[in-house]
């Protein structure tokens, strides 16, 4: 089972249609999904799922970035986690990474820097919609970058991934690969 965490600023927001349901529609082809708002995720939810995807949010929505304490569970879980956009930024904050201003909107050239389980090609285009990226640390390896900023990271010891772009828009294979990890 896949736990999809709705990262939007409030429960049942308009952002769900745009950032959560498209993810669920891809993931449901592979496995059963449950959707929970980030303020409603329980230890039982985490215990019962096999993997976790943190959704993106509207460009102006920075709610989770001011509440990294709500995501302390990411540090303790051993389950695969994929953070998308705000999800990646939030993972970064939980592990003490600094946010870096990086506005990108639209199709963006992504360069893969390291062979990894999520994407295989050296360069690809993906849909971006973000105001911030993260600066990395020794705990994370950088998997991909754009001309402006880091685009994908992975924790060195855990199956914990972040992608800044939105794979649900033009790169659903990345989500499928994560589900098959």
């Amino acid at each position: 089972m896949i736990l999809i965490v709705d990262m939007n600023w409030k429960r049942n927001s308009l952002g769900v249609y745009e950032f959560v349901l498209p993810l669920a529609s891809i993931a449901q082809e592979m496995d059963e999904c449950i959707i929970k708002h980030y303020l409603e995720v329980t230890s039982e939810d985490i215990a019962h799922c096999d993997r976790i995807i943190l959704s993106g949010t509207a460009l102006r929505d920075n709610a989770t970035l001011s509440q990294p304490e709500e995501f302390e569970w990411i540090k303790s879980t051993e389950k695969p986690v994929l953070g998308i956009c705000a999800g990646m930024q939030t993972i970064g904050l939980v592990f003490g990474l600094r946010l870096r201003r990086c506005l990108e909107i639209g199709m963006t050239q992504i360069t893969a820097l390291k062979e990894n389980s999520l994407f295989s090609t050296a360069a690809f285009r993906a849909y971006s919609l973000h105001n911030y990226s993260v600066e990395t640390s020794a705990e994370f390896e950088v998997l991909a970058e754009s001309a402006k900023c880091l685009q994908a990271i992975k924790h060195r010891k855990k199956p914990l991934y972040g992608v800044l772009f939105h794979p649900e828009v033009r790169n659903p294979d990345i989500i499928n690969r994560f589900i098959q990890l």
Partner: protein
Amino acid sequence: MKLGVLFSGGKDSTLALHKAAEIEEVACLITLRSKNPESFMFHTPNVELTELQAEALDLPLVTRITEGKKEEELADLREAIVEAATRFHIEGVVTGAVDSVYQAQRVQRVCSQLDLWCFNPLWKRNQKALLEELVKDQFTVIISGVFAYPLDESWLGKKIDSEIIARLFALQQQYGLSPSGEGGEIETSVLDAPLFKRKVEILNSFVEWNRDSGIFRINKARLVPK
């Protein structure tokens, strides 16, 4: 949150309006009337109908005429959104984009520059589910433009119902046509929807056919009780 809906009067922007109104306050509609029939951003047959549709919805309408030149039309969009923000204090914009990155990224950029929210409640929706939702929720939607083979004159003015959806999907299998018209294959006009307080009645219309595409031109229409 007060929102303005980018409104062409077609099925996608009307459904997006309904999704937005379920959760937030829709304060106004925003329509760009493009003089360029090739505009990827704003061209819609019968866009003049939005005045009547706005009246049916009892919502104010902000209208801007644009020459429809690539990128310059974004300045016109920006002006229209600024006017909506000034007059109706909107904090965000809603679009009916389903899969067009071209349209979505341009509206996102304008909203980002203006520090406004931008929502796309139909984003990546399954095309069949989207059409079926319109029928289930009793939207009256007619095909007002066809722009791809093998769609011909006979489709113009047809109401979208289960039979039309089945035929569109058969054409998708055979010709790769986007059944919801996401590739610009069909354009639509909404005559009635759940939030319409009155419905649009067409009094005079005609078909404009030009070799391999055509428009169902609504010449005269009025609002009548539902």
